[in-house]
């Protein structure tokens, strides 16, 4: 385990990812398990460069998951409430 600062960052990121994972649309995906295993795989890193890389990967996962949620919701709403200039039966407008 590295310095206290990076440890706190890692823990905060873990909590954030756990909370995000609760809303994952596919119940069989086991988001929580995957995050746990990724963290355990990297628990003994000492080189600061490696630690930064791992944290960046965590941030990337967070952003991608947020984008997934956002897009899924938007697509659903766009289908249910098509705008005035698009044809409700046309999937591409």
């Amino acid at each position: 385990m590295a310095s206290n600062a990076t440890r706190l960052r890692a823990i905060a990121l873990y909590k954030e990812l756990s909370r995000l994972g609760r809303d994952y649309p596919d119940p069989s995906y086991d988001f929580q398990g995957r995050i746990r295993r990724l963290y355990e795989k990297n628990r003994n890193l000492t080189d600061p460069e490696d630690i930064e890389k791992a944290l960046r990967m965590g941030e990337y996962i967070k952003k991608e998951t947020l984008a997934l949620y956002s897009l899924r919701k938007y697509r659903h709403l766009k289908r249910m409430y098509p705008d005035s200039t698009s044809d409700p039966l046309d999937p591409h407008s």
Partner: protein
Amino acid sequence: MRPSAARAVDFAVKIRVNPQQTGIDTNVKHSMNPFDEIAVEEAVRLRERLKTEVKSIQAVTIGSPKSIDTLRTALAMGADSAIHVEIPESDPAPEPLAVAKTLKAIIEKQKEGIDIVILGKQAIDDDLGLTGQMLAGLLNWPQATFASKVEVDVAKREVVVVREIDGGGEEIRCKLPLVITTDLRLNVPRYATLPNIMKAKKKPVTKYSAADLGVDLTPQLETLKVTEPPTRVGGGKVESVDELVAKLKEAGITAV
């Protein structure tokens, strides 16, 4: 500024009619109505654009004790404070007119005055789309509904709104104070991140009851029956054009 934050059945839930056929099964996941999320987001973005001109953003919800979650989400997205008009869990959901009357009572209670009220255009579980318009009528304020773009001119105390209408957009200029209802294309709401949710816990939430505001929330409408749409019957395949024509004739469709 006052965005509304109604709690509705979550968008991803498959709605089921309850066995008594009097309504839908509400023992499912609920979250903030997506159009209200857009309303809260727009309020926060207006502050980001206009900075100190926006003195405060207050989120309001009228509902059971569980509705506090939607207020917490609104606070985490950037609202400064929240107002919860609490109704008992067992009471039926308030009707749009009752909601509008309650919002009017809250607005009139505010000493500093409210300039803009932003609501979602409709709730995704009942799709009524009435509250905003009723509120504007009760307050005698102008309304800009189905807004897909909002631009505030602080000096002139005017707002230019582009509204979604059949076949395109309509641009209107309104004087403050104003009621706006949001359409899907106004913005994409931010996700409330954990640090913001933590910060939101310290923000004030004022509780009122309907009696405090002098509003009667009893429903004026009685739902007689709720049924699911008829199940789709499968189509049939035909071998030739003649057979197709014969089947169409059978179904009673004649040539134009």
